[in-house]
């Protein structure tokens, strides 16, 4: 009885050893102790569904530092104009074909002044919106790699930003076309008669423990507000409101105040969701090279322009 049991045990052991060694031969070769680690460079942000149902710790007090991503499906890319006022008749529908002289009939029209409307008509956008023209006919400064400027960096393609807090500044790093801004928190006043800057002059303050408000002035009117060619004057004032909901989530509201161009303030983004990324998240480079842009326009943009529509 005992003998038979021993034989069985040996048989099972032998069989097991054999099957393990066979398994080792057929399994794909692996380096000792190797586990596939995610590439630490050029990190890819999760898409919106990945955030669903995630629990978050409470928000830290007076802290918006970190790497924040505007998930693509949340609408960070705004090719038809600022997210809250796309230059479309219907969402993602009628109007993308372009060809209209102005924005009459769009879903949420902007309160243009007569000067604002005139400035709008002078800007020829190539994005899918009611006034779209083929790229070879557009006069979008960004199509020549002119600086995207502020607030267009938030109202065209907001992707990933990094915020760094120091004792007297918040440093704002924006992936799209490699922009940085300094937001002073040392109590200084905004300049009274500033030399225009593409990214303006910014001061920020905490209005409560979870809400940081930035005021920006001195913006170069050569930049557009968004990809639909909305204009601004040198008197533009922008308010950004970063409201941290909890540890992992923040909302951004961007208000445009420019009485020369618009009869009342309007919001480009309203409680727009930003998602905190892990500290090791490496933001990939998205730089506009004028030489590459010219080459693209030569080989692609001008070739697809409608015959007869070529720039004279």
């Amino acid at each position, binding site marked *: 009885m005992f003998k038979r049991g021993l034989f069985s045990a040996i048989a099972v052991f032998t069989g097991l050893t054999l099957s393990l060694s066979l398994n080792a031969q057929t399994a794909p070769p692996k380096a000792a102790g190797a586990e596939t680690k995610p590439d630490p460079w050029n990190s890819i942000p999760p898409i919106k569904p990945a955030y669903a149902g995630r629990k978050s710790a409470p928000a830290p007090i007076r802290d918006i530092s970190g790497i924040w991503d505007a998930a693509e499906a949340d609408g960070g890319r705004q090719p038809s104009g600022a997210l809250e006022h796309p230059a479309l008749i219907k969402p993602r529908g009628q109007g993308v074909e*372009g060809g209209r002289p102005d924005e009459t009939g769009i879903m949420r029209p902007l309160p243009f002044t007569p000067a604002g409307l005139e400035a709008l008509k002078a800007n020829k956008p190539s994005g*899918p919106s009611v006034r779209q023209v083929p*790229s070879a006919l557009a006069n979008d400064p960004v199509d020549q790699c002119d600086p995207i400027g502020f607030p267009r960096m938030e109202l065209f393609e907001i992707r990933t930003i990094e915020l760094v807090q120091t004792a007297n500044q918040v440093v704002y790093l924006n992936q799209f076309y490699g922009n940085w801004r300094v937001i002073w928190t040392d109590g200084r006043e905004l300049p009274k008669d500033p030399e225009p800057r593409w990214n303006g002059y910014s001061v920020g303050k905490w209005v409560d423990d979870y809400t940081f408000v930035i005021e920006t002035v001195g913006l170069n009117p050569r930049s557009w507000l968004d990809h639909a060619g909305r204009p601004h004057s040198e008197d533009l004032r922008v308010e950004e409101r970063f409201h941290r909901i909890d540890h992992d989530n923040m909302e951004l509201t961007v208000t445009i105040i420019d009485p020369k161009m618009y009869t009342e303030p309007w919001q480009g983004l309203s409680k727009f969701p930003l998602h905190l990324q892990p500290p090791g998240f490496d933001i*990939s480079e*998205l730089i506009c090279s004028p030489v*590459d842009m010219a080459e*693209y326009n030569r080989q*692609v943009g001008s070739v*697809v322009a409608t015959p007869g529509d070529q720039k004279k």
Partner: protein
Amino acid sequence: MKNQLRIPPLLWIAVLAISAPLFAHHGNAAYDTEKSLNVKGTVTGYVWANPHVFVKVDVKDESGSVAHWIVEAQNPVSMMQIGWSKDTFKPGDEVEIDAMPAKNGNPVAFLGSSSPTATRRRIVINGKQFQP
């Protein structure tokens, strides 16, 4: 000259209703979003740069004459996010790419949206379906 740039007969043009939202830097005013064509040929170049990545493809028709095609995608960061890299195509690769044609008939086609949630168009590289 213009006639040589027309779509050669070897290209199969399928009319497809494309309902996916199109997010393009430069819009799609120049492209026929209702159509899809199949660009089949040999890669001669691959430009991995802003504002948009593009693939250059030589397409031969039955008579042996060659048309130089370009297939336009989106910017490198957007393409990386859906699995493309600087090495996705190399000169000499035999490819088939479904894309929307230019309205003016010139040999340029566009892949449209690079949204991570949009439906991917068919790309075959050296006989293998491209599945990043």
